[in-house]
């Protein structure tokens, strides 16, 4: 399973990449695969503030709706509007062009609760066995 080393991961299968006080959030390779072909993405308004673990949007496949949760608290500063016309980017490039939102970190210490790439890979493995 692909999970880049420079990202942090949540138990809800979001990834986050920090660049100073701004961070980018998306869903993982594993999450997009579980979901199947993404046909719709619902994005939040720029300027909205979310708490940790709060749903900030949803991605939908042919069969299912999946909420996307904040791995950390923060304020939305940008959304990936190209997903409105091309939601399949979430399947094709979940860690790149399939990013979902950028936020200003509310509390950088939130990051400490997240998993490293190695920890996340182990978590997914255990989850699929359980």
């Amino acid at each position, binding site marked *: 399973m692909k999970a880049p080393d420079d990202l942090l991961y949540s138990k809800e299968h979001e990834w986050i990449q920090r660049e100073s006080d701004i961070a980018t959030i998306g869903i993982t390779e594993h999450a997009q695969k579980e979901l*199947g*072909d993404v*046909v*719709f993405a*619902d994005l939040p308004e720029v300027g909205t503030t979310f708490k940790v673990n709060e749903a900030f949007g*949803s991605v*939908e*496949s*042919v*069969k299912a*709706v999946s909420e996307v949760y904040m791995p950390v608290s923060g304020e939305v500063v940008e959304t990936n509007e190209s997903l*409105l016309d091309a939601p399949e980017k979430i399947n094709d490039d979940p860690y790149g062009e399939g990013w979902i939102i950028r936020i200003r970190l509310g509390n950088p210490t939130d990051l400490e609760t997240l998993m490293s790439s190695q920890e996340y890979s182990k978590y997914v493995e255990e989850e699929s066995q359980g």
Partner: protein
Amino acid sequence: MTLKKTPLNALHKEYGARMVDFAGWEMPVHYGSALKEHFAVRERVGIFDVSHMGEIEFIGPGALAMAQKVTSNDVSRLSDGQAQYSAFLYPQGTFIDDIVVYRISDQHIFVCVNAANREKDYQWVKSKKEGRVDILDNSDSYVQLAIQGPKAEAVLQELTDLDLSSIQYYGFTFGNVNGTRCLISRTGYTGENGFEIYIPVEEAPSIWERLFQVGKPFGIMAAGLAARNTLRLEVAYCLYGHEIDETTTPWEAGLGWIVRLGKGEFIGHDSLEKLKEEGKQRKLAGFEMVGRGIARDHYPVIVDGTEVGQVTSGSFAPSLKKSVGLVYLPIQYARIGQPLEVEIRGKRVQAKVVETPFYTR
């Protein structure tokens, strides 16, 4: 509860299927991409294992009379080798099941029923048995494959000496597929040209594999339940448990054409006659989303601030690049162009009533 498995279960897993519970069966929902499978059927050819469907046979001198009594369509209008869409109805005129009736002869009627209703249907029909007829649940004796799409005929023709072009729409015949005698019918649930074949269980895995070999140059794909659902929804075919059930009548569902009141007595006849005179209060309507969002099953549908119905089937429609759905609406709100709102997880999103089928080839 242990899920039932079709004889092709192991093959599906080998082909990369994601399996789900459907009506107590472990069935493929997709083999990697429901969208690609959908487009394979619309543009080329796809193959579905639909062995979870049941087969009930009426055999004996009383077979035709029995079928006339328990089904709503007119079996006497069929020649041997013709099939028709029909229904088993309760006396009050609502659906026990929607079915396909195959007239093999006046002494042998073969009925394809929904997986979820198989036991209920069988018990019902047996309890209404009359005359010299045996009623058999032979569901475990057949594998049913649906080969659907513009290239379906070319693919299946590779495995049979029978001239498939001689089979009309809703016609069927017995013929060899890969050397095995099967019932071959030009029917389907996708809105595309195609065939459904009923195969003896033992021969099914080899026929499935052969279809893939000969289908390869045509771009054949295995297709799962997710694609089956988007394909049938685009052409607004009813699905039992969604558009039709024990609370809905053929009149409301837009299935008046499978009811032949003039054929004589059948179970449900008198209620349907009465309901027809009274006129319907609601009807099944198609809608598409105007605002952004996907309407899904059970979402509330609102007119002027009041909930007037719930989505019976709703999905993104891949061939239309739109979200569409079906809903029972009070007849005053069921006209084309009627503005609606669909409540999508707490948010009301604009929609409107449109013509069905949503998709035509």
